[in-house]
């Protein structure tokens, strides 16, 4: 495309279908604690 460069083809929707297993790490994002945004976490489903 000339005007738009897609740099990330989304996959959020797919993750929803298989998601929700709850195996991933808990993720407090407040100032006083672990503090990274949830979006940065790893999926732990297949661990």
């Amino acid at each position, binding site marked *: *495309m*000339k*005007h*738009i*460069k*897609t*740099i*990330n*083809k*989304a*996959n*959020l*929707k797919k*993750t*929803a279908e*298989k*998601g*929700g*297993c*709850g*195996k*991933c*790490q*808990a*993720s*407090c*994002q*407040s*100032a*006083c*604690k*672990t*503090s*990274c*945004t*949830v*979006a*940065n*976490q*790893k*999926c*732990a*489903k297949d*661990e």
Partner: protein
Amino acid sequence: MIHKFKLSGFNILLDVNSGGVHIVDDLTYDLLDNVEPPFADECPEEVVNKLSKLYDAEEIKECYGEIVELYNDKILFSEDDYEKYAKFAVASPVKAMCLHIAHDCNLRCEYCFASTGDYGVGRKRMSLETGKKAIDFLIEKSQDRKFLELDFFGGEPLMNWDVVKEIVIYAREREKECGKKFRFTITTNGLLLTDDKIDFINEEMSNVVLSIDGRKSVNDRMRKRVDGTGSYDKITDVFKKLVDKRGDKEYYVRGTYTKYNLDFSEDVMHLYELGFDQISVEPVMADPEMPYAITEADLPKIFKEYEILAQKLQKVYDEGKFVNFFHFMLDLDQGPCAIKRLRGCGCGNEYVAVTPDGDIYPCHQFVGIDDFKMGNLDDGTFNQEMKSYFAASHVYSKPECKKCWAKFYCSGGCNANNYIYEGDIHNAHKLSCEIQKKRLECSIMMKALKLAETAE
């Protein structure tokens, strides 16, 4: 829903519901202010006329075609069909715990949310007996979850070090019997760190959080000892030692910025220059009446500072070096599933905090707020109703979040801040939101640039 913004000379376009990210030219950027679904086959005449003062008519039509193509591919203006997953928001096993090993501290940080370590309820240390009960509680309530997280927190956990060690030993015994795996973390101000503690921490703790605010003047202004002297000199030495010996294991240094150091990019870079490459520095959350509190009036300066920080970090990357600033970490491809993103921290549901008295709270920030006491380890109480209340807290139960472009990255913010500053866990805390969104824009921009480079 889309969100677009200009940063560092780039026009960035986020498709909120799919997570797609695009870099667009000025024409697309302006055109998107004028068109939205449902799309016609051709660009509407009045839009072409309106924009033809700035752009060539043929180009406008061509650009419109590209927008429609991405829309048809469902990576632009894709639909919000996640609400159905809110049904997953039910009570879950408890898998993480914050253990308040000592409600006491050897520092008197001015901004401490725990009122100098005692949470306003008196200085206390957890007994080994209570610690063991907490481990048993977590194992029992975790049901089929294998990986359990336990964070030694305070106050200052090193003030009750022997109990920390004993609890780790006990949990290691129990995990074998029960087929669980504990992942320990500890948060410390460093004052009591010694060689043998460093070795134990490096051996047993999967992550360690080292509190330091940055430059000496900044750190020592807020992070003072009981006698008023600063802590910088002592902790920089021991933290470096700990990190050097730690190998590849996770750690991070974390600081707080306040109204006194709105030029906090200097502090991040200072920590980097000290030799730390895992860094988190974040805004203080405080009563707006406090002299060091950040208020809405500070936001323009803070936004600018995040941009400056992004540039400084970019420079480090350009030199082929590495540093990780936590709030700019973003995994565009492989982050957690959408359901996790809807639910966020899981406090009061998957995560609880336990005090030296064995009282259970939804998380460390709720400790000491009577209305949120969930139960107690000694009398075996654990309020399931409150657990369900927290379980049902997700971006679709929070009115502001539901319509927010950042919801899949922010996950509805911090329930505790929402409650403390806005009166209800469902009310987004505006100040946090503004800062969160700015950080996200910066991190999406940095990721976008990186991907754009490699795509070329």
